[in-house]
């Protein structure tokens, strides 16, 4: 029988409900922990039901921080993360759209050569060239700056390839019609190509924003000034700051706030997210 039977369905639902519960569990625990007073974590096992201190904990982490441990209020870190994520996203999208446009709609010497240069970025993640890249950024005076946080990360082979792929599917005649209608290359790009790419841009925006927000190693390398800490790397400072046990209620409140923006982006733009994820890998 190809149709589903009732027991099979019941079993499948059971597996999925348990699975979803396990997947959600860590975040549930974090949310619960962020609502308890500090005393809860001194002894015994962590709580599984909400406590009374939610408002206070979140107020503390957002506005006060812990000056003794050297962690600033996280409102600033949230803002830094947001600026960095947006700069990376917009930067990646802009330069990739332009490169793909050049590669698809022009024929010029060294075209393939440039394509391979862009392709090389795929093979050189930050993790394999930590020190020399740090050196370059330091020499350029970009340590502790938003430019340093974002510009070195905005080269994107993936986005360039995706747009190239998409541009190749745009009918030839649209460009020809635009030329007969008196549109030059940049006018065609702005009036025809960009509006047509809007879904792809939105899908990539979701992916890139999450990528940017979740940067960890890079901000860790190039920021020493707490002014420029981002939230994701800031958590590490909170956890390891000092020898004592971390202040779990504050750490977890920070964790929740750090994870929330990208999670909300995914939940509200699930369709675009799935499209972006599956198409960038083609």
């Amino acid at each position, binding site marked *: 029988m190809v149709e589903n039977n009732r027991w099979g369905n019941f079993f499948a639902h059971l597996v999925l409900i348990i699975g979803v519960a396990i997947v959600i569990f860590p975040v549930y625990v974090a949310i619960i922990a962020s609502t308890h007073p500090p005393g809860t974590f001194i002894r015994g096992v962590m709580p599984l039901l909400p406590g009374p201190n939610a408002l206070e904990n979140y107020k503390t982490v957002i506005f006060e921080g812990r000056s003794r441990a050297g962690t600033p209020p996280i409102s600033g870190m949230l803002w830094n993360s947001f600026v960095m994520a947006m700069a990376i996203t917009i930067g990646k999208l802009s330069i990739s759209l332009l490169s793909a446009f050049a590669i698809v709609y022009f024929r010029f010497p060294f075209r393939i050569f440039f394509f391979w240069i862009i392709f090389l970025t795929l093979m050189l993640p930050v993790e394999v060239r930590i020190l020399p890249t740090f050196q370059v950024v330091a020499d350029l005076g970009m340590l502790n700056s938003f430019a340093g946080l974002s510009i070195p990360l905005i080269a994107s082979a993936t986005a360039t390839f995706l747009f190239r792929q998409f541009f190749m599917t745009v*009918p030839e*005649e*649209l460009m*020809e*019609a*635009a*030329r*007969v*209608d*008196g*549109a030059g290359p940049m*006018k065609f790009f702005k*009036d*025809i190509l960009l*509006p*047509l790419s*809007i879904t792809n841009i939105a899908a990539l925006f979701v992916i890139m924003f999450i990528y940017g927000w979740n940067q960890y190693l890079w901000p860790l390398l190039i920021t020493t000034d707490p002014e420029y800490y981002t939230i994701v790397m800031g958590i590490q400072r909170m956890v390891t700051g000092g020898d004592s046990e971390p202040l779990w209620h504050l750490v977890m409140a920070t964790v929740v706030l750090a994870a929330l923006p990208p999670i909300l982006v995914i939940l509200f733009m699930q369709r675009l997210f799935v499209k972006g994820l599956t198409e960038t890998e083609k």
Partner: protein
Amino acid sequence: MASITMENLGKVYAGNVRAVTDVNIDIADGEMIVLVGPSGCGKSTLLRMVAGLETITEGTLHIGDRVVNQLEPADRDIAMVFQNYALYPHMTVFNNLAYGLKNRGFKKAEIDRRVKEAAQMLEIGAFLDRKPRQLSGGQRQRVAMGRALVREPAAFLFDEPLSNLDAKLRVQMRVEIRQLQKRLRTTSLYVTHDQLEALTMADRLVVLNGGRIEQIGTPMDVYSHPATTFVAGFIGSPAMNMLPAEYMRGLVSADSLAHLPVKADLIGIRPEDLSLAPAAEDEMSLSGRLMLLEPAGAESHLHLSFEGIKETMVVRLPHVPDVVEGATLTFSIKREKLHPFDVTSGKRVA
């Protein structure tokens, strides 16, 4: 309004691939020229060379009194209707029509006026706010026409504009385009692979094959005096029958074919020039065995074979005759309706 003159136009692609060779056409102001030929004959390339979408590698192209070889498409004062219409999918019909005018810096009032006028002419006024995907195939076709119309160009270029429509709509749009063109008297170059479209729409048609012109002439001229065996086979449906002259000479008394040049070794016969009536004074007769009778309502197609040669013949009659398959039938044809060709050169003789 302008004439178009093509002088020795040729196109060679990189890698020495030849697409068009030595094309000379003079298109008079207001004339409708149809380029026709099988796929790959270079007709679209030629049209795109006129449009400026392909560079011209040989010869000279005049539009009006200008040489336009080096001009951008937008500067040639032409408008083009594409096979797949190439409507901008994200723009409304209004903006599709207006885009070219905006790029040329027309005033808003003038754009409005021209778009409204074209919309009225094409009966698409009700769709101006819609996007192309909300339109039917025929409506899209009209929008594509409209985009060419609003520009009031020196010439229209049509690249198989009807090939994406169903048969019924195609006939309807064919009539409309021709009427519109006659009314506006705009010089037009129209590309199609459909010989019927070519015959019905053209002031003059140009038959292309292998990148060269086979024949230029009015539809009736090309139909009744095909200059080459290729044209004879391509224009007219069913295609012209070709029988070896030697065989024909053996069938009939010598003087029946005396009016044909000796060089003629291939005789062309249009399927509709044969009849079942007995041969009259100026006619000759021809017998064959009926292999298949295809009744088609108002007319019928008869497929015949002959003893001793492998060539077969199709006859088109304006009625369905009362005959049985397998029978031997005798047809008559006016002697002047025979088309003599030379096999080796493929050219018509005399």
